[in-house]
């Protein structure tokens, strides 16, 4: 794996950043091909070919579990073949992407598989986005034609006033995912099939997703987490338990699905684990061997309760971005699952290069703090709209190894003397309150260390007097009598005065969530 990544980096070095997007990606793909030839035995089979091989050799093996239904590899391949015909009937130009508006279902999985088999690039946005936003995204991707899975209604999207120019996609583009886009139009992240295949190979190596294994998929299909839960599992020949997004917030349903289907592997946002714990009582999910949380900081109470819920599981904190896919993995010691928060993000995955840049832009050697840059074998070459690469995909900082393409994560981290990396905040969550720089993510983490806090969100509102005014909201544990006074004391003990939010709201209900299940920080602010 390491050699593989080095090969990619060397090619990127030769190409440089000045090259046009398509040229960079093509050259990188050639580099991959050369490396793959050198390591023929190690090169992962492309996902659609691996899936087809399973369907041919083990047609009766279960591929998907969906409510009471089991879909075998053979049945799924037949569904995908039917979708390939629908795709062919669209009469798309070579390399022209198709837009998928797919709510999770076996039919949606078949539709994505059809695109993969046809080597047809596809944009897979969250179907929950506003119609106008979806229309803008499809236009930006150059997807003139939309497909929805069989059995799902086709929504009407508004026509755009101006047809967007067709972007040039790099050869080998498969999935086009979107960033969560909390502030503006989500960015489109095109992934090369090779990058996806390197990732699914890592996931299978690490968690064993092959025949006989059941992997629970909680995330929506458009979420990058599905690359592991769904796509790596189908590449490896395992069985994917699809949790219906329509019932994803129903804790009892989730628990029933897991106790019935007994998955070996489950990855989910902390919210899902917290939900499960609510419903579980003394029930243990003893089938789970690998349990990962990712996408958000986990709270102390959920973390402390996981070992009892998952008595046979290794626990992991996974760190990744849509742009780079997973880049860090931390395996927790079960005995101190309740120990220090926040949980470290751990060490880089094989082939992943990381760099911590100090505020003056120089790379850090050894322990210390700074902003995290990563370069992974799984990453996108850039955003589809290359004008949005600026400051994100970069060869900076200086001295980081000439030409290597780095992704600037925006995450502030500390590396300890053991080489483990800890998240400390977001560079873009830095705000000034009365002239003092404070980090709202750090305040959230301190709130979550309080034993009676389940969820926390902090947001800053502009204030003519103080620069920024901080608003915090928390959900307290059931039966808790936590009040603002005790919560303030807790904050004041752990944070500088300026970082103690002016407004604290304590709720018994969960905080509002975004479409991807993360806490909606904007909802914390008073409505203007």
């Amino acid at each position, binding site marked *: 794996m390491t050699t593989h990544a080095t090969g990619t980096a060397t090619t990127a070095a030769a190409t440089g950043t000045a090259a046009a997007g398509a040229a960079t990606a093509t050259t990188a793909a050639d580099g991959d091909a050369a490396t793959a030839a050198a390591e023929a035995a190690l090169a992962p089979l492309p996902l659609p070919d691996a899936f087809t091989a399973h369907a041919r050799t083990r047609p009766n093996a279960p591929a998907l579990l969906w409510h009471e239904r089991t879909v075998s590899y053979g049945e799924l391949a037949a569904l995908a073949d039917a979708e390939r015909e629908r795709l062919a009937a669209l009469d798309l130009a070579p390399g022209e992407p198709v837009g998928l508006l797919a709510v999770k279902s076996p039919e949606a999985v078949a539709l994505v598989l059809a695109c993969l088999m046809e080597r047809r690039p596809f944009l897979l946005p969250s179907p929950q986005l506003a119609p106008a936003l979806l229309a803008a995204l499809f236009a930006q991707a150059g997807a003139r034609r939309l497909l929805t899975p069989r059995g799902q209604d086709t929504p009407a999207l508004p026509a755009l006033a101006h047809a967007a120019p067709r972007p040039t996609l790099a050869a080998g583009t498969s999935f086009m995912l979107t960033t969560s886009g909390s502030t503006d139009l989500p960015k489109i992240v095109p992934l090369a099939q090779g990058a996806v295949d390197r990732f699914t190979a890592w996931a299978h190596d690490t968690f064993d997703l092959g025949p006989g294994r059941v992997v629970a998929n909680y995330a929506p299909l458009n979420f990058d987490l599905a690359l592991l839960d769904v796509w790596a599992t189908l590449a490896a020949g395992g069985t994917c338990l699809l949790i219906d997004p329509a019932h994803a917030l129903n804790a009892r349903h989730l628990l029933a699905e897991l106790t019935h289907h007994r998955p070996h592997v489950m990855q989910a946002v902390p919210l899902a684990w917290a939900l499960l714990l609510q419903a579980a009582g003394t029930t243990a999910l003893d089938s789970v061997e690998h349990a990962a949380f990712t996408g958000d900081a986990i709270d102390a109470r959920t973390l402390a309760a996981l070992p009892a819920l998952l008595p046979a599981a290794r626990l992991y904190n996974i760190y990744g971005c849509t742009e780079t896919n997973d880049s860090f993995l931390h395996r927790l010691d079960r005995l101190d699952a309740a120990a220090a928060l926040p949980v470290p993000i751990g060490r880089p995955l094989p082939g992943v290069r990381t760099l911590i840049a100090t505020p003056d832009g120089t790379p850090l050697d050894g322990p210390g703090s700074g902003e995290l840059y990563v370069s992974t074998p799984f990453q996108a070459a850039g955003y589809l709209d290359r004008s949005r690469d600026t400051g994100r995909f970069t060869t900076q900082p200086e001295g980081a190894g000439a030409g290597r393409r780095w992704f600037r994560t925006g995450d502030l981290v500390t590396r300890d003397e053991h080489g483990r990396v800890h998240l400390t905040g977001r560079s873009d969550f830095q705000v000034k309150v009365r002239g003092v720089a404070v980090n709202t993510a750090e305040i959230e983490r301190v709130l979550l260390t309080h034993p009676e806090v389940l969820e926390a969100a902090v947001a800053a509102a502009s204030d003519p*007097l103080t620069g920024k005014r901080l608003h915090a909201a928390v959900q307290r544990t059931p039966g808790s009598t936590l*009040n*603002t006074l005790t919560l*303030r*004391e807790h*904050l004041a003990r752990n944070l500088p*005065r300026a970082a103690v939010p*002016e407004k604290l709201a304590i709720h018994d209900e969960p905080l509002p969530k975004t479409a991807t299940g993360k806490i909606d920080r904007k909802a914390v602010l008073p409505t203007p």
Partner: protein
Amino acid sequence: MSNITQIKRFLIEEFLPDVTPEQLADDHDLLSDGVIDSLGVLKLIAWVEDHFSLPVDDTDLDPNNFRSVAAIDAFITERRAAASATVGG
């Protein structure tokens, strides 16, 4: 009603709507954890002046006089004594 009770009632109404008087300790540091910020101190002074009919001089504007319920109570008691001493003298 003692000063303490009145001070607590004001602080709770104004700054701590979800807290009961029993939960607010007399020596709780109101400034260090931001229950009262600089604007809050001004509000508090205005209330002390108005409610206890006590003029607060610029020289009294030491935040430590308003750091806790006990400190506010002590300040009021002391200013009252000083005021009656002046009147009496």
